[in-house]
């Protein structure tokens, strides 16, 4: 029960990050590594502001803005300075590490008690209302995921969103239809990194601290959720993709929790397990093909 609760709450928080990764990798078809930086930017900004006494919701909103800014930087490096997408992301990511230490003032910021001697976070108002901390995290994360998902769905259905989706498909055609693809790429990266930073901000408040090494592996974790979603549900519409990713993100957390509950596994094995999951999920089409061939042969003899 505890394992499931933990997996659901982390799964929900990280689904925002997975959706961000989905926007750059799948919608824009650009492998944007700056999200690794945006997680810690979001986490660090939120931690710093919250521990400084700022309203946690305001702090979280600010964290998103910083994430959007990281996306803006990657986007400008890529479109205006013509740096290849993957490198533009890496540059932003590397820079983010320095920026986040400036923001936090240290490489690790706990959400220390302040004011009337207690830790506040976005979840506090729910625990104050009598919810357990675990339930408060699940409830609020769920609400945020639903609101963010609905807003994103509506945005992607507008003329502007439609132009973003087309840009990921075929830039040549999009320009021929009179759309500035640079603007669309930058907008999509801002949106993507904003969501990732939001996840980072919630994560920091969930675990009670932010540190610079939180972001390592973000890409792979996000991709893991996206790929699990795609392999299991094969979503074909934008909104079904969003729902599938949220479920995929929770499933990923469950797999991790189960794997780590095995005795000889250590928490630090997490990234190894993630890499294995992604590898398996990526080979699924190949495995399926092989299996169907084997079964076909058995059928013949």
């Amino acid at each position, binding site marked *: 029960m505890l394992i499931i609760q933990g997996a659901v709450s982390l799964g929900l928080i990280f689904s925002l990050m997975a959706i961000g990764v989905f926007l750059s990798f799948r919608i824009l078809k650009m492998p944007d590594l700056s999200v690794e930086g945006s997680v810690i930017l979001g986490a660090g900004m939120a931690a710093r502001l919250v521990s400084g006494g700022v309203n946690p919701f305001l702090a979280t909103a600010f964290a998103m803005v910083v994430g959007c800014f990281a996306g803006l930087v990657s986007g400008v490096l890529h479109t205006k300075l013509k740096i290849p997408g993957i490198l533009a992301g890496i540059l932003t990511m590397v820079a983010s590490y320095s920026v986040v230490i400036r923001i936090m003032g240290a490489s690790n910021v706990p959400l220390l008690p302040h004011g009337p001697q207690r830790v506040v976070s976005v979840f506090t108002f729910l625990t104050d209302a009598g919810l357990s901390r675990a339930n408060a995290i699940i409830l609020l994360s769920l609400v945020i995921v639903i609101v963010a998902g609905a807003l994103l769905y509506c*945005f992607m*259905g*507008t*003329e*502007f*969103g*439609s*132009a973003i*989706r*087309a840009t*990921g*498909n*075929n830039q*040549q*055609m*999009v*320009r*021929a*239809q*009179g*759309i*500035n*693809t640079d603007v669309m790429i930058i907008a999509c990266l801002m949106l993507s990194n904003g969501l990732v930073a939001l996840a980072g901000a919630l994560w920091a408040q969930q675990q009670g601290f932010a540190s610079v090494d939180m972001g390592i592996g973000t890409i792979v974790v996000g991709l893991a959720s996206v790929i699990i979603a795609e392999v299991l549900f094969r979503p074909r519409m934008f909104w079904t993709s969003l729902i599938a990713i949220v479920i995929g993100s929770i499933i990923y957390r469950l797999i991790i929790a189960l794997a780590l509950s095995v005795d000889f596994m250590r928490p630090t094995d997490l990234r190894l397990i993630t890499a294995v999951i992604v590898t398996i999920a990526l080979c699924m089409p190949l495995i399926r093909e092989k299996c169907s061939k084997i079964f076909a042969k058995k059928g013949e003899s």
Partner: protein
Amino acid sequence: MLNIENIHLTFDPGTPIEKHALNGVSLNLERGDYVTVIGGNGAGKSTLLNITAGTLFPDKGAVSVDGVNITHMPEYKRAQYLGRVFQDPRRGTATDMSIEENLALAYRRGKTRGLRWHINNKERKFYKERLATLDLGLENRLSDKVGLLSGGQRQALSLLMATLKEPKVLLLDEHTAALDPKTAKKVLELTNKIVNKYNLTTMMVTHNMRDALKNGNRLMMMYEGNIILDVKGEEKANLTVQDLLKMFETASGEEMTSDRMLLT
């Protein structure tokens, strides 16, 4: 309508692979002109179209559409004046998006993209009517992904998208070359139908001499970055493939044997 003046473009200047793709090309299309463009491989036909479309920029010279100088205007901005269909059917459409989404994108060519919903029911009706004119049954498949369509269907859709909002100039770069002969014929017929119906100013590159002779009111032949022949009306109507071959030989001093232009 389209005025091109003394365009020069050299690829990779100052290197061993330097290539003068266009050497002072000038042409003037009147409103409603439908010019077919022929010429051997590497003659500069695509380069000329790309300079008009803004995917390439000339070293020298000027391009204007309907009196507006667009020589340095970025591709996406001048798209408001231009309709384009590419050789590769995949280049003209967004694969993962539906037919109606593609049409809705094209219908807004030249408009800023705002936060209104990307399509509405009134448009849908209009798209259905226009799709029906293609006679491919696409009017019943509005929400099908374009990736499901055949090359010919995609090219017909691209053509419709390029002309959905009437362009001042329609640019077609061997848009039937990737299709099988029967489909190519059908798409060419559709092209004529649409061009004639809306009296569109059109520049169509083709490698098929017969098509070049049969369609349009004007014909141009390019050779090594120059226009070496430009005939109109009566004079064009009386041309034959033999005439074209002879003219090419006199102009270039070469015989057209190995060139794919012969493959009519």
